[in-house]
């Protein structure tokens, strides 16, 4: 059980390392989108501080989303996905591995760099900490839900835009609780409630989403 998950993670990480561009690009997309907002809105520190959680979260969401189309597409094109579907392990476990690898490559780096970007928005230390925490807890849910969308749109024309169309509505709860936790902290209300809801959603997504993705993949392979 665990072994196949680890094998998949190891392979996907190895691939990401070989390609390099993969990791760096999702991260820099995040950085760039976040940096665009002050440019669009103006440099007033007070205003920016208020926006920070929302902007960072929306950017994290978009960055994750943009890396989704390739989650299964490469394996699909070169026939690896067929082989994975034919392995004697449940496809859901394999998708779990791929989802975790996706998060390690596209979610975790966001959490690591978020504090630096938060500083650009002049966030206080505790808010920075909560922000990092929410992104750390929330992005696995984004990867999990996103995997379902990626599996559903695998091999379709215009799949990329279709994928965002499918996935964004499902991302909204994560966004609301993620940004909400930071705002609550900034305004002194305490973000614990939000955080535990976020954690609950992530747990549910990680447990449930891979099986939905696996079902969708089987359809895509027909």
């Amino acid at each position, binding site marked *: 059980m665990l072994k*196949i998950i680890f*094998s*998949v993670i190891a*392979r996907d990480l*190895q*691939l990401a390392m*070989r*390609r390099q561009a993969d990791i760096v690009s999702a991260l820099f997309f995040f950085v760039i989108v976040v940096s665009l907002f002050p440019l669009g809105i103006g440099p007033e520190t007070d205003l920016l501080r208020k926006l920070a959680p929302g902007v960072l979260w929306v950017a994290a969401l978009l960055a994750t989303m943009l890396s989704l189309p390739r989650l299964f597409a*490469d394996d699909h*094109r*070169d*026939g*690896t996905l*067929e*082989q*994975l*579907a*034919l*392995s*004697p*392990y*449940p496809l859901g476990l*394999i998708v779990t591995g791929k989802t975790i690898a996706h998060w390690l490559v596209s979610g975790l780096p966001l959490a690591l760099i978020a504090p630096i970007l938060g500083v650009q928005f002049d966030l206080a230390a505790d808010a920075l900490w909560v922000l990092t925490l929410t992104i750390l807890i929330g992005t696995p849910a984004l990867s999990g839900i996103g995997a379902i969308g990626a599996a559903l749109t695998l091999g379709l024309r215009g799949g990329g835009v279709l994928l965002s169309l499918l996935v964004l509505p499902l991302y909204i709860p994560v966004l609301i609780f993620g940004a909400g936790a930071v705002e609550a902290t900034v305004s002194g209300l305490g973000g614990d409630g939000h955080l535990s809801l976020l954690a609950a959603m992530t747990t549910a997504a990680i447990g449930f989403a891979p099986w939905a993705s696996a079902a969708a993949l*089987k359809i895509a*392979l*027909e």
Partner: protein
Amino acid sequence: MLEADNLECLRGDNRLFAGLGFTLAPGELIYLQGRNGAGKTSLLRMLIGLLPPESGDIRWQGESIGKQRDEYHAALCYLGHHNAIKEELTPLENFHHAARFAGQDMDEDAALDALAQVGLAGREDLPCRYLSQGQKRRVALARLVVDRRPLWVLDEPFVALDVAAVDWLAQIISAHLQRGGMAIMTTHQAVEIPAGAVRELRIG
């Protein structure tokens, strides 16, 4: 033993075949023939359980394959039109990952041995991107050297191979049949399999 009963295949508006049935016993090879687009690949994908047939039934050891997916997959080795290798990884890495996903862990020596057998000695550490088409195919075929699963499903395995490699692969398939394995394959080339009971099946 693999049995297919009364299979029907619809793609879009076309009925590719209907009422197709056969039995594949240990030591037997079915040689699937038909013009391009006749439905050979579609049939193979039905047999491995990726494409549900419009009607009809496929049984492995007497039981429908849908009901024993994981067990069936553990008994099955499929090689498709695509090589299922990653261009960024080396032959050795690709081979390891493929073995692991098939549930067979492999030590370094056995892996190097298999790669040497398919003529990739000295290229084990070169990313597959730099390999020629035929060498890429060989990386995929290296799995067959160590594979002991009873049922092989091979979709045009000889494509892109040179003459020596075609002979080598025919030997490998023969050995598999003599061990009591089963195989079903398609090919547009005429290839002589030296041993085992070879049967032709024509569709379309």
